C-alpha cells in the first residue's frame, strides 16, 4: 500500500502507559457492586445456599429416618427440631435444606442448559438468516407442539426415574422460548450499523457473533434466565406432585410445599416455612437478575 504503514515503533513513541485490563465483565461487576438491592439479594441467596450445603451435614437428623414419637411436632428451639417435624416425624429443617439443594440444583442446571442451547440456536438462526433460519425455527415450532406431560411420561418409562431425567425434560422444553427471543433480537441487531462496521473492518463472522452480538443480547438473556430458574423450580414441583419428579424420601421445595398444602389447616408451618424459602429464593433471583441486567448495560450507571 502506498499510504504510510502502521509501525509499532511509531505507536510506541506516544508512550502512554498500558491500560489496566478492562472488559465488559469487569465493568459489569463494578456496576453490580453499587446496586444495593441486587447485592443484598445475592448475599441472601448465598446464605441459603451455604445453609443448604452445611446444615444437613452438621445436623444430627437426616431427611429420611422417621421418628414415630414426634409426628407433626411444631417448631421449637429446645427439642432440637427448629422447624418442627412432618407427618412421619422427620426433621423439617433438614428436609427443607435438602429441598433447597435439589430445587436450586435443578433450577440452575436446567436453566444453564436451556440458556446455552437457546442462545446458540437463536443467534445461529438469526445471524444465518434465510433458509437456515426458517428450518431452525420450524424445528422449534415442532418441539413447541410436543405435549410436555406425555413427553415426560415417555422419558420416565424409557429411562426410569432419576433426577438427571428432570434436567433433560425441563431443559428440552424451556430453551425454546430463549431461542425465539434471542433470534428476534439477533435479527434486529444483525442489520445494526455497528455490525456492518465490524464486517468492513474485517472481523470474522464468528468473532462478530461472540464480541459484538452476544454482549448486546446479554441483558435480555440474563433477565430471561433469572425468570427461568424459578419457573423451572415450580415446574419440578409440578412434576413431583404427579409422581414424575424426585422420589420420596428425597424431597424438593416443590414437594414440601405441596405436602404442606394438604395439612394446611392442622399444621400451617409445614406449608409456610418451605413456602417462605421458595418465595425468598425466587424473589432474590429476580432481584439479582434485574441487577445483572442493569450492570451489563453500560448506559445504566
Amino acid at each position, binding site marked *: *500500500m502506498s499510504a504510510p504503514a502502521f509501525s509499532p515503533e511509531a505507536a510506541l513513541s*506516544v508512550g*502512554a502507559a498500558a491500560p489496566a485490563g478492562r472488559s465488559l465483565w469487569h465493568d459489569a461487576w463494578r456496576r453490580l457492586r453499587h446496586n444495593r438491592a441486587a447485592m443484598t439479594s445475592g448475599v441472601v441467596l448465598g446464605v441459603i445456599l451455604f445453609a443448604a450445603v452445611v446444615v444437613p451435614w452438621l445436623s444430627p437428623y437426616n431427611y429420611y429416618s422417621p421418628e414415630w414419637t414426634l409426628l407433626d411436632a411444631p417448631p421449637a428451639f429446645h427439642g432440637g427440631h427448629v422447624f418442627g417435624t412432618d407427618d412421619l416425624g422427620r426433621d423439617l429443617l433438614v428436609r427443607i435444606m435438602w429441598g433447597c439443594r435439589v430445587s436450586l440444583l435443578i433450577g440452575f442446571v436446567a436453566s444453564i442448559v436451556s440458556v446455552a442451547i437457546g442462545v446458540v440456536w437463536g443467534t445461529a438462526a438469526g445471524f444465518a438468516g434465510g433458509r437456515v433460519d426458517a428450518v431452525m425455527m420450524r424445528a422449534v415450532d415442532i418441539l413447541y407442539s410436543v405435549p410436555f406431560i406425555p413427553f415426560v411420561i415417555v422419558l420416565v418409562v424409557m429411562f426410569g426415574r432419576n433426577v438427571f431425567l428432570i434436567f433433560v425434560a425441563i431443559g428440552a422444553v424451556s430453551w425454546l422460548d430463549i431461542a425465539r427471543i434471542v433470534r428476534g433480537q439477533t435479527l434486529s441487531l444483525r442489520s*445494526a450499523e455497528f455490525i456492518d*462496521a465490524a464486517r468492513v473492518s*474485517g472481523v470474522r463472522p464468528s468473532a462478530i457473533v461472540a464480541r459484538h452480538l452476544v*454482549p448486546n443480547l446479554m441483558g435480555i438473556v440474563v433477565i430471561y434466565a433469572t425468570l427461568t430458574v424459578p419457573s423451572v423450580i415450580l415446574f419440578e414441583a409440578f412434576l413431583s406432585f404427579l409422581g414424575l419428579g424426585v422420589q420420596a424420601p428425597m424431597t424438593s421445595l416443590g414437594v414440601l410445599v405441596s405436602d404442606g398444602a394438604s395439612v394446611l389447616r392442622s399444621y400451617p408451618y409445614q406449608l409456610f416455612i418451605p413456602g417462605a424459602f421458595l418465595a425468598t429464593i425466587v424473589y432474590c433471583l429476580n432481584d439479582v437478575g434485574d441487577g445483572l441486567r442493569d450492570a451489563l448495560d453500560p*448506559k445504566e450507571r
Partner: protein
Amino acid sequence: MPPLLEVRRLSVAFHTREGAVRAVSDVELELAAGETLAVVGESGSGKSQMLLSMLGLLARNGRAEGSVRLDGEELLGAPEARLAELRGAAVGYVFQDPMTSLNPYLSIGTQLTEPVRLHKGADRATAYRRAIEMLKAVHIPESERRMRQYPHELSGGMRQRVAIAMALMCSPAILIADEPTTALDVTVQAQVLALLREIKDQFGTAVILVTHDLGVIAELADRVHVMYAGRIVERGSVEDIFYRYRHPYTAALKRSVPSWTESRPQRLVAISGNPPNPLRLPPGCAFAPRCAFRLEVCGERLPVLERVTDGHAKACFYAGPLGEEEG
C-alpha cells in the same frame, strides 16, 4: 503509475422474488493515491452498494460483476479470507450514523483496538498506544479517559471522530466515508469535514466520499462522480461539476440546493418525479422520464459516457444549454 483503485464495468444485481434488481450498472472509476473522489446521488442510486460490493460485502442475494483492482490485485472473486484481511487494513470505512455505528456495549478503547489487534497482531499495549495516538489525531481531548468510556457518553460529533479514528487505525490506503456528515448538526458537520481534509493531508489517505450534499463536495473533493439509478451520468473535477455541468441531472441537483444569497425567500426547487424502480428500469436513459431536456432518442437508447473535456465526461444525448449557467 497505475491507479490505487481501478473499477471496470462493475455491475451489482440483487435477485429477489420479483426479479433481478440492478443496483449498479457498468460503473468505471479510478482513484489515485491521496486523491479525494466524491460520489453524489440521490438515496437509492446505488452508491453504498457499489462500495460494499468492492469489499465483497453484498447481501447474500447480491452478485457483483466486472473488475475491481486494488493496487493491481483483483478483489471481485477473491477468496473471503483475503478480503477479510484487506477490510479495515487496506480500506477503512466510516458510516453515516455514528449513533449506531459504534457498539453500545463495548468501550471506545475495546472497539478502537479491535482492528489493529486483528490485522497487525498488535499486543494490547501497542494497540492501546496506537488508539491514543489516533484519538489525538482526530482531536479528541482527554484520550486516556475517553478510551474507558462507552459510546453513549460521547456526543454525536465526538462519536463520528471516534469512528474515523477507528477506520484509520491500520493506516488504510483508502478511506471510504459513506455520508459521514449526514447525521450530524451543521456546525459539527463543518468540524468533521475539516478533520477529514486534515487527515487526508496528514496521512496521504485517498478518500472516497459518498454524499448527497453538494456543499460537502465543494469542501473536500478533487473529482466528482454523479450517479443516477446505478450509473455514472457525469464525472469531472469539482469545477466541471459545479460550473460547467453538462448533464440535466447534475443541473437539477444543483438547482435543488437552497440558496441563501437571494434577497427574497424562494420556493425550494425539487426534481419532479421519483427515481425509477430498479426492477423496471426504462429502456433508454433512466433519467429521461424526469428530464426537462428529453429527446426522442432518450427513451430508446442508453447514452454512454462521452468526453466533454479532459477528465470531464457525461452520459447524455442532449448537447444544448442547460438553462441558467453559473460562474
